[in-house]
């Protein structure tokens, strides 16, 4: 199982800077998801590792070996694009045997290995089918079997579930990860679907405009985002802008517009400092009007969205700021109404505090 190190990688396409100063380390056997909005450089990063695109600067090191000068066929990586790129004129078996044969294995050994991989993905009975005769899910498994058969130890998955319908995508997430893990591979999985990344990744790399914003476990990234962009990009978030009013040993009070006060646990900010508070929507609850507790902010319901497993209630606070609360389906008592007066509440320990960005909150969290 190889480890991968990217050091100071930069790549531009004309005037467009696709990647800049990317440093990453991926451990042996790790399943890492690269998450970021469209155009953030995810695919470019993958293609540089595969040797399909040459970086302008920096090094790609696989298992301690510098592979900058190596062509794709000598890097021991297997690239799986979103379309799977199954060779349409070859049978499933020949597709899977392509890698071993290309690596000059004797035919018998190559086909024996291809059969074994097809058995592993439970598609041996369809060995003689053409790719177009298979469903999307089967094609995805053939592509995976082909990558595994090639003997590559580093799997590069570019939106591998993107072409599937929602239900199948959910099912195949788990299969994909367990197959990769059982084969003992290191995998980099590019996606823009944060839920998918949360579920399958050992670690997540958040990319934005060619820069690495944060690397960490899903839990860490979700609960401890390092900046407002990550906080906004991963999960559904409320942002409240305010000024630090008082700081004591156990926390601080932040005053919002209109004199509303929010208690936070953070103590590292100074009196008078402009900050942005972040609290997850699912950690915000909707209470009856007049609810008197720390961080109970009053307002009226401006919109209600039914999400299946929960209800999102959008509340316009008395100071005009918007705030959304999630009510799990099991906790819905009476269904709220538009215009109804409610209180939104959250615990001080659930609030993260960030310095107010110089260029403004909107610009800081903009995805595209």
């Amino acid at each position, binding site marked *: 199982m190889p480890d991968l190190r990217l050091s100071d990688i930069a790549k531009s396409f004309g005037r467009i800077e696709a990647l800049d100063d990317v440093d990453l380390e991926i451990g042996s056997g790790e399943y890492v998801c690269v998450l970021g909005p469209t155009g953030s450089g995810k695919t470019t990063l993958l293609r540089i590792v595969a040797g399909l695109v040459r970086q302008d600067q920096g090094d790609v090191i696989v298992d301690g070996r510098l592979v900058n000068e190596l062509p794709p066929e000598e890097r021991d990586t297997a*690239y799986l*694009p979103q379309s799977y790129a199954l060779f349409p004129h070859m049978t499933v078996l020949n597709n899977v045997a392509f890698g071993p044969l290309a690596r000059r294995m004797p035919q018998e050994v190559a086909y024996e290995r291809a059969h074994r991989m097809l058995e592993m993905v439970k598609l041996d009975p369809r060995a003689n089918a053409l790719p177009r005769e298979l469903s999307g899910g089967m094609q995805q498994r053939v592509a995976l079997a082909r990558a595994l058969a090639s003997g590559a130890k580093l799997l590069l998955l570019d939106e591998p579930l993107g072409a599937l319908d929602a239900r199948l995508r959910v099912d195949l997430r788990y299969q994909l990860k367990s197959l990769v893990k059982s084969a003992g591979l290191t995998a980099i999985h590019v996606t823009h679907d944060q839920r998918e990344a949360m579920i399958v990744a050992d670690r997540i790399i958040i990319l934005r405009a060619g820069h690495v914003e944060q690397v960490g476990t899903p839990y860490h990234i979700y609960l401890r985002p390092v900046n407002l962009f990550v906080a906004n990009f991963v999960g559904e978030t409320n942002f409240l802008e305010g000024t630090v009013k008082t700081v004591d040993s156990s926390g601080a009070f932040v005053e919002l517009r209109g004199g509303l006060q929010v208690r936070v646990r953070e103590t590292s900010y100074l009196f008078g400092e402009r900050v942005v508070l972040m609290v997850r929507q699912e950690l915000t609850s909707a209470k009856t009007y007049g609810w008197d507790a720390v961080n109970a902010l009053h307002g009226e319901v401006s919109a209600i969205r039914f999400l299946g497993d929960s209800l999102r209630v959008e509340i316009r606070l008395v100071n005009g700021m918007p705030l959304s609360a999630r009510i799990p389906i099991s906790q819905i008592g009476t269904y709220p109404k538009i215009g109804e007066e409610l209180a939104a509440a959250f615990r001080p320990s659930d609030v993260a505090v960030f310095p107010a960005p110089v260029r403004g909150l909107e610009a800081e969290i903009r995805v595209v």
Partner: protein
Amino acid sequence: MIKDRLLDVILSALDDLSAHPLVRRVVYSAALVFFVAVVLIPPIVGVVLKYGLLGDTLRDASLVSRAQSAIAASFIIAFVVSLLDLVAGIPTAWFIVRRKNRWTSIVDTLADIPFVIPTVALGFSILIFWSQPGGLSGLLRIESLVSPGVGLIMLLHFAFSYPIIVRLLVGELQGYDQVFETASRTLGASPLTAARTVTLPMLKPALVSAFLLAFCRSLSETGATAVVAGAFENGPILIRNARAQGQEGPMVLVSAVLIVSSCVIFAMISLLGPRLRLPTKKVWPHFERNLSGPKASLSRDGISLAVFGLFVALPSLFVVLPAASAFADGTIISAISGRGVWGSFWTSLAISYVVGISATLMNLVVGFPMAVVIARRKLGKNITAFVDALVSVPITIPSVALGVSLGYFWAAFGNLPELWVLVLVHTTITYTYFVRTMSAAIESVPNELEEVGRTLGGRPFETFRKIVLPLTKYSIFSGAVMVLTRSVDETGATTAVAKEIKTAPVLLVDWIRSPDKYSQSTVGLGILFLVLTAFVSLLAIRLALRRSR
């Protein structure tokens, strides 16, 4: 078994070689050098070498005036014919794609006839049909319904460029997503309004390409034009006549002007065509709804089919009659035994195929890497686009002018055998067809397939031969067929280059222009043999391809 092992070893060695970037660079550079040295430079430099001849010609007012008229006639004919082709071709293409009845497949098949029949045969067929007692004139008891000259040239050019327009538009219409038309219909547009304001503007690039191809084809045609021109001269005919009369000056002058002006016009139409605005803003709901009704549609189909039948299908097939008479009057016996004129005919036919096959092989070897360079943008986006545009140069220049220039260029290299020069000239003329077909085919194979093949361990050549080649084999077939048929059919450039050697179409033009010496059944049978051998060679290529699968 040993042969297979040997092949494996060779392929394996080539796979390994292709893994070296230097080797790949050498192959692509060689393809580029060949393109520049053999395809691009000679047609331009050839006439420049003879600029000394222009002085005397330009001082002769009558020669200059003759050249001016001929060149103007060439462009006017090409422009008018291409426009008429578009007007007639759009409804026919629409009929083939959109109507579902038994006539559509018949029309679809018949529309290709002028493609299949060599142009010299087409010229002869049209000459008899419109102009001679054996055709429509005889039926109407008129001496000559359309006498040889500009009218007959236009009828000929209309017939052979019509299938280019129809074929291209049929392809585009088949690929067109009708959802746009459906959307405009649900928004209240009549079928005609939807077609005029939504579909046609979206097909504008195809319309411009179709117009350009028809324009170039008309500008370039020489052999068949010579058959129907009578005393009239357009550019290619003037060059042909001047060569026969030993007047090098006018030949060089007209060739130079045609080369420069056709390149300029091609570039202008290519650049300005896409900016051309179709009248789509104004809508006449009532009028267009009436024209979209079943009766109006039926009339429109009827008119377009009548135009197709009378001006394309019937005149093109008329050559069958004199060919059939050869079986009745015993000409066939002389032909098979090779007596009299038939000895030289068989020699010419053999030469045509030697030249055609050699040009096809040359294209396969040197055109393939160039097609890869273009399709995979190996020279970067901008330079590749520039090279891609340059590849069109040989089909832009009228073939006879190209032949004159190439003849001078290769003559400058001393005593190159005439057959070699002919092969080089035919390679130049057919290069665009092969490279265009192959680059389009390679481009249609997603690059991702090759990339994935590479990451799975395949060497560059290995991924190319195992993935791209099998997926493009029908295009290789089409490209090879196009090159071979175009080469065997070629008259203009061959006339301009060859002094001793006569290919079959050149010989047949001579026969047709000497009706006193060669009977219609002799010419008809000669043409029949040319057509039959073309079919046999197509079949042979197809079989060879099937065996290699």
